[in-house]
Structure formats: C-alpha cells, structure tokens
C-alpha cells in the first residue's frame, strides 16, 4: 500500500482524501474530523483579518501542521486578477507556493469560469506556483490546464456543497484516461459511496468539505470518507467483475442431493 501514495508535483501524500476547513460546528470538531479523515492535505481560504474582533482563535491552531499540508484556495474569486492576487497573498501567509485555484463563473452553481481559470493558471505557473485548478468535468479544458502547467486537475463531481454525487461518471473516466497529471474530484460528494465511486472511476484523489463538515456527525463521516476513498481505490486497483444482465451461480451446479429435477443442470 505504501507504493500507492498520491504524488503531486513531487510531493507525496499518504492519503488520497483532501478535506476542507470550512463550515464545521467548531474548530475542535474540525480537528477531530481531520484526524479521523486521515487526510494530510487540507484547504483553507484567504480572508481579511477581522480587526474589530481579535478574540477569535486562529484556524491554524487547530491544524496539525506537522502532519497536514495546507493548501490555500482562491474561493470566492470571480476574475483571474482577483484569484491571482488572492493566491499571492495565500503564498505569503502559508509559506508554500501551492494553491487550489478557483475562478468562479456563476454564483448559483459556483461553476468555474474556465477561460479565466486557464489565464490565472498560466500567470501563477509562470510565478512558480504549484497550481491545482478546480474546473468542470470537461476533458478538453482539463488538457489545456495540464498543458498550461497545472500540477493536477480537479474536475467537479457536482455543484459545491450540493451532495449530489458524481453527476457524469463517464466524463471523469475520460478525464483520467487522458490526463498525465493527477485527477482529483473536487466538489459534489455527498456520502461515502460517492467518494468510492470517484476512486473506482480512476480518480487519484477526492477533495471535499461540506459532506463532512455538515454531516450529522462530522467525525464519523470523516472516517466514512476515509474508508470510502480507500475502498474505491482498492477496488479500482483490484479490478472489478464485469456486469452481466443475468445471473451466474456462486455454488456448484452439480453434486446436489436432490430429487433429480432436470433444471438443476442449468442452474
């Protein structure tokens, strides 16, 4: 299993599950969920310091930075310019040059503006960033992002926070078949089987926030997601049986101690 690590831009991650830090009931629950998830990379947002209320604990106090790599995002940015600016600030806080690049194109769906995303990717790659762009499930834009130097591509499974699961499995499969960088399914997972499905389609990892943070029991769901990702990955590597429309028996069809009805032969 050690050989099956996720490697992005030369950095090795033990877990194929990447989780967020938003919307948890409390920082303490988040920290416990992070432990349960097994994730060694978490996303964070870059926002103005709250100057009027300095009493708030820092998010970073609740992230085990020994074990967990911090991936700043550009969530909430609707232009390449804003995303680039946010990425630069995130780099300065975080002391790493990685960024989960979001350039949104629509408030209702939070779907990416892929044209601006590509532009921002080019700029940030030129500036030495390790860019992980959140994109939609389009193999063509994924290839363009890869060609622009993205370290991974992160197609969405469904709208952020929707919990709908992988809406277009065929596209995820095609993106993986074409990609030469890791494919991380980002957004849309609702429950553990969704995470397993993403991995069974060949994804190299899954990124999620809401499905854990807003679950009835975030810590239990974090465990479930860890198991789901591992289950899907192992099933993908093991090679599943083909689907058949009819049955094939699991037990021998001869040697039965029965009254010798003719139908046994065919069972």
């Amino acid at each position, binding site marked *: 299993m050690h050989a099956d690590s996720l490697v992005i831009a030369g950095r090795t991650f033990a877990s194929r599950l990447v989780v*967020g*830090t*938003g*919307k*948890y009931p409390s920082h303490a629950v*988040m920290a416990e969920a992070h432990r349960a998830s097994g994730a060694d990379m978490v*996303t*964070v*947002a*870059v*926002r*103005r*310091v709250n*100057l009027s209320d*300095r009493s708030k604990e*820092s*998010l*970073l106090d609740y992230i085990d930075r020994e074990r967990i790599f*911090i991936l*700043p*995002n550009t*969530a909430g940015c609707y232009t390449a310019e804003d995303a680039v*600016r946010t990425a*630069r*600030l*995130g*780099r*300065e*806080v*975080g002391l790493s040059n990685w960024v989960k690049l979001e350039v949104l194109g629509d408030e209702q769906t939070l779907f990416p503006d892929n044209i601006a995303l590509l532009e921002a990717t080019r700029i940030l790659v030129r500036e030495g960033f390790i860019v992980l762009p959140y994109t939609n499930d389009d193999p063509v834009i994924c290839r363009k992002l890869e060609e622009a130097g993205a370290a991974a591509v992160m197609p969405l499974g469904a709208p*952020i*926070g929707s919990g709908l699961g992988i809406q277009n499995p065929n596209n995820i499969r095609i993106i993986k078949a074409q990609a030469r960088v890791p494919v991380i399914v980002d957004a849309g997972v609702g429950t553990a089987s969704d995470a397993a499905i993403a991995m069974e389609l060949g994804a190299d990892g899954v*990124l*999620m*926030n*809401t499905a854990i*943070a807003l679950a009835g029991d975030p810590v239990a769901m974090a465990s479930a997601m860890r198991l789901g990702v591992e289950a899907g990955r192992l099933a993908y590597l093991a090679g599943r049986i083909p689907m058949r429309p009819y049955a094939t028996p699991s037990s021998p069809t001869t040697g039965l101690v029965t009254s010798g009805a003719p139908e046994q032969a065919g069972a």
Partner: protein
Amino acid sequence: MTIRLNGDQVELAAPLTIAALLAHLKIDPRLVAVEHNVEVIKRARYETTVVNEGDEVEIVNFVGGG
C-alpha cells in the same frame, strides 16, 4: 492621517512601517500576509515598508474554507 485598511477608513497618528502597524494592531506577523497598495509585501520588508496617508493596506489570514 487616514489609510484604507481592509476596506475601511482608519485614522493613524503618523506614517509607520508595516511591522509597526501589525504591532499596533496586535497581529502576529507569522500568521498573516500583507498587501500594500495592491502589492504583496514579503515579511523581510515589513520593517522597511512605510504606510503613508491615503495608502491601501490589506491584512489577511487563513480561515476555514473548502
């Protein structure tokens, strides 16, 4: 003098460095990033970058996100 700090008008006595501004605000410089007139300021330059009348300063940190 007046500066624009995180989008709000803020009154300060006199020009001061980023380092002094952070100290004034009781902000640990290791947990934030600072933009001065839309330019990110490296930590090494906090002592030498001066904030003047009318400048725009942004001080950001990490918060929960996905």
